[in-house]
């Protein structure tokens, strides 16, 4: 079992002294400092054949004060998925730019910059990406209170605030009875 996975892990461990583990069949993960990530990615791309960058994701560890970035790369020859993970400070959040290794990284990095406020020095394209005219805190950070923002900006429909069952609210207002067949779907 898992020979390919183990072998990959061995290579990476010997090359970069990274920590890592085999998650399961065809899934390998490693983690390292953020400065090492471009070197690792370049190495796996050019030498090990991991030519496909699936995506870059970010997890907000608010309590630790860290962002965790996960680079998912895939090898079409080995049929292995490799997760390269790193943790960076939340404030200031700066991460080396890898869009010279993969062009498509540009898209993910611009999205991360907009949604989490992570800076990628040297990133091409400084105009807004998905959000339009956004001047608040980056909205995907966990300390951004989206419900407060929504309440402040949008108009709440009366009757929503106590999160009652909609059907009950409607019947209460219109004075009709809840039909028998519908009662079993009621919340209480």
């Amino acid at each position, binding site marked *: 079992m898992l020979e390919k996975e183990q072998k990959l892990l061995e290579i990476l461990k010997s090359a970069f002294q990274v920590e890592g583990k085999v998650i399961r069949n065809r899934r390998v993960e490693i983690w390292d400092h953020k400065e090492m990530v471009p070197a690792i990615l370049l190495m796996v791309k050019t030498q090990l054949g991991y030519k496909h960058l699936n995506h870059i994701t970010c997890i907000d560890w608010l309590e630790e004060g860290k962002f965790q970035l996960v680079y998912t790369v895939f090898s079409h020859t080995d049929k292995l998925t490799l997760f390269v993970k790193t943790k960076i400070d939340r404030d200031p959040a700066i991460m080396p730019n890898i869009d010279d290794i993969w062009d498509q990284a540009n898209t993910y990095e611009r999205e991360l910059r907009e949604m989490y406020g992570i800076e990628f020095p040297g990133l091409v394209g400084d105009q807004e990406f998905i*959000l*339009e*005219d956004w*001047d*608040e805190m980056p*909205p995907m950070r966990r300390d*951004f209170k*989206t*419900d407060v*923002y*929504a*309440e402040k*900006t*949008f*108009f*709440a*429909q009366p*009757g*929503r605030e106590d999160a009652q069952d*909609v059907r009950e609210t409607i019947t209460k207002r219109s004075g009709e009875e809840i039909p028998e067949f519908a009662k079993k779907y009621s919340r209480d």
Partner: protein
Amino acid sequence: MENKRNSQTIAEYIKNWSRKHSLFIMAYGTGCGAIEIPATLTSRYDAERLGIRGAATPRQADVLLITGYLATKTLKRVIRVYEQMQDPKYVIAFGSCTINGGMYYDSYNTINVLEKYIPVDVYINGCMPRPEAVIAGFQQLQDKIARGEADNGTRYKENLEWYRANQHRVIKNWRMPDYNW
């Protein structure tokens, strides 16, 4: 000449009758309701028998369909499309999302109540409403038109300042041409 019913003049009655039976829809395919429109218009539910047919551009359209949640980004486009439509025009809003925000009620980028931004004639509730419900909504709109009560464009024009204020709350960078009504 006065018509007894609804106290409309004959000319007005004829106009409203024709408006009722010829609804060119501008389906602004936001959210999940966009997929209900083809079903409504094609063989199974056949909305064309009620005189409903698609229009390609807002200039030709009578009815604007908002088929689901509206992101603030989309709202900007919807307002522009709405303003480009010619009077008399009607708006039908689909689904919970346009009524009260639906499951996106606390999202940072989805508006909650459509009526605050553009006047709405008919809400069709459901998540999403099925084509039968859509057709029922259209019929309600038709009744409203026949009674001469569908005054969407006039309402917008008269309360333009109020609507604009609400729109400006959401759309911060107002980069749209203001229309000389």
